[in-house]
């Protein structure tokens, strides 16, 4: 892919890109991974604590507590998004806040907030899935394929 792209560039462009790549700072991948591990882990610990509370005081068992736990995490994420804090945390945490369900909630609520000015139907309604839509589309498509594989494996 990278080579195919490079072929289209003129020699001057290639030379320049080599220069630019040498100068521009790289993403600190190792640090980002570590931060994602720590912050994602913290979110999971919070989730676990919420679940334990539902089990201890809410009369749920561990299986049925999953639903309300996710709902609480989503609520916290949306509140932090509305307060303008979530994106600040995410700049530090990276994938740590993007991968869990809180990231999904943030992508939907931030789009909804952003397009509030364009009205409820064409703004909020239409734009809410601007970022989250592709997750759903590819999630459903992947689930369908996995489902077929599962079905075939079961038959054999």
């Amino acid at each position, binding site marked *: 892919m990278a080579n195919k792209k490079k072929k289209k560039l003129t020699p001057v*462009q290639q030379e*320049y890109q080599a220069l630019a790549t040498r100068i521009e700072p790289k993403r600190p991948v190792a640090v980002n991974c570590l931060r994602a591990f720590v912050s994602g882990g913290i979110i999971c610990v919070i989730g676990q604590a919420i679940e334990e509370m539902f089990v201890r005081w809410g009369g749920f068992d561990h299986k049925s507590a999953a639903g309300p736990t996710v709902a609480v995490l989503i609520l916290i994420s949306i509140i932090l998004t509305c307060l303008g804090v979530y*994106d*600040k945390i995410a*700049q530090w945490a990276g994938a740590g806040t993007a991968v869990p369900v809180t990231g999904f909630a*943030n992508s939907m609520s931030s789009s909804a907030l*952003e397009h509030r*000015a364009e009205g409820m139907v064409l703004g909020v309604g239409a734009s809410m899935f601007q970022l989250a839509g592709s997750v759903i589309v590819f999630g459903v498509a992947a689930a369908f394929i996995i489902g077929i594989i599962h079905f075939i494996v079961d038959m054999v």
Partner: protein
Amino acid sequence: MLKGHQSWIFENKPAILSTATIVGPFEGQGPLVEDFDTIHGDLTLGQDSWEKAEKTLIEEAANKAIMKSGLTKEQIHFYFGGDLMNQIISSSFSARTLAIPYFGMFGACSTSMETLAMSAYVVNSGGAEYVLAATGSHNASAEKQFRYPTEYGSQKPPTAQFTVTGAGAAVVSREGYGPVVTSATIGRVIDMGITDPFNMGAAMAPAAVDTIEAHFRDLQIEPGYYDLIVTGDLSKVGYSIANELFEKHNFPIKQTNYQDCGMMIYNYETQSVQAGASGCGCSAVVTYGHLLNRMHRGEINRLLVVATGALLSPLSFQQGESIPCIAHAVAIEAGR
């Protein structure tokens, strides 16, 4: 008067009668806080959308500049304006309020000097007595249009830049007192094949270098002629690359003091802006505020501002197109 291939000399020396700069709260926390006319505490400026906030910024800058010049709106013959929004709505809508005959221009972040160059040209050639040049950008409206929703938690790479919330305006006049616009060089569109919209500095640096070299070639002067040369919004990455390119081309940039507006407006220690600032507002508020104030104080006599712009659209980069860039240079000298 045309000089060389792509430059104008303004022999009638149009003067910048007055300027105005309006910025948002985040810029007010930066080191240039003393140089702005108005600092808004509220990012929305009391409007109900980011786009309206951006329009209000430009309106306020235009009105303030006209007020400071001692003129009235009716005396301004033409208004050159532009911004980053689709169909340059912020400028056009501000022109609706101002009711001044209007030229809408798009040069992305190079609009500040594009409009100033055109204003000076029109005034110099006798096409008008007074002309207004204004431009602005808003961080949230730019994020919304070009990147992600404002509150979306995405991690920005260290090459990313922070769009300035601010607008700058200048009134250019045939007569009167103020710094004079002496020449301008109009840039070519340069595309070095950079496709990453989070790396505008690297995309724009070759355009800035091309225009600067053209300016000195056309005018047959040396960089040492100017006390200060500034680029618009290359920020850390683009600035380093530009310096490297000058060295490679054996261009004597070291004769003068070369800086970048994108590296002046924020405090890297306390403000999280990655590589630095960008946006139409960046070069506009730094030039019309900070740099012209320094000229008034006598710290700078000859200044060359090279505003840089990335001419991409959200659609073009999604379709995998590279980012074409442009830069326009305007020379401002301490005047009469």
